[in-house]
């Protein structure tokens, strides 16, 4: 029985990791590209990170993980703190960076 539960849990986690394609981070203090490049560089050094998108106008950073790898909220928060900024909110979103950018463009 335990094996069945463990299997089900694995399936659910696998589903969640596929459903949550990216992590969206709301950041305080992000006002110019010259300063915010530190965020991109700091997060890009994390091995699980595939791509980083800085949305300066909406003060959010979207991070996409490498295939089959989960992002760690703690290391993302540390990366942004090392760049000199404060994380306000961190959430999983179903979109990839490409989809997020397309949706953002269509809202303009």
């Amino acid at each position, binding site marked *: 029985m335990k094996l069945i539960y463990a299997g089900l849990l694995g399936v659910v986690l696998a589903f969640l990791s596929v459903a949550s394609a990216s992590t969206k981070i709301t*950041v*305080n*203090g*992000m*006002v*110019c*590209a*010259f*300063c*915010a*490049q*530190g*965020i991109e*560089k*700091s997060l890009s050094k994390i091995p699980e990170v595939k791509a980083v*998108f*800085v*949305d*300066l*106008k909406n*003060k959010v950073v979207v991070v996409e993980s490498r295939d089959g790898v989960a992002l760690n909220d703690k290391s993302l928060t540390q990366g942004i*703190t*090392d*760049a*000199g*900024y*404060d994380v*306000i909110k961190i959430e999983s979103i179903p979109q990839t960076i490409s989809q997020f950018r397309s949706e953002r463009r269509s809202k303009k």
Partner: protein
Amino acid sequence: MGFKNSWMIMGDLSKPYYDLSANYATTINDAYGFSLSQTQYNRSRSTSRTAEVIYVRKVKRWNMPEAQANMWFAGGVGATKDSKLDETRATASLGVQLDYETTRFYSMVATRTSFAGGMTSTNSTARLGVSFYEVDYDQAQPWIVIEARRIEVESKQYEFTPLIRVIHNKYFIEAGANLSGHLRFNFMLNY
């Protein structure tokens, strides 16, 4: 200084004064580097050249939803060569800067005092800037900046310089001319 584990290279270039410096941020708040500067005495050919090892400290950053403010400290020790007196003296400097900026507005005040051979001189700067429009992270952003600056050994008067600033990713450049027609070029590079 830039972000942790990054180099910041800066230049402030004009006829009466230039300053070239580079520093490396070892932590989120501390950077170490060096600075080379030259100041021309008021309407003379005499100059004062200074080489310093510098320390920059981000004393406090306030991160707000739509703005950022900072308090900086800078200190340096080195040597100054004065062409008027034809001698080299040990020098030290202390400076403080406060800035506040949003995506469309920039303000800054700074003061820096140098001590060399019993003499002191203070440089004071205030800046206000506005950008033409907000941009995305990967777009160039143009600004108009007005600066009031007084370099004590050069002149007791403040000089006013309008500048055009362009920021694009790791590049930051400013160009302008003061009311006396002296050209001015500033840059910063962070990597």
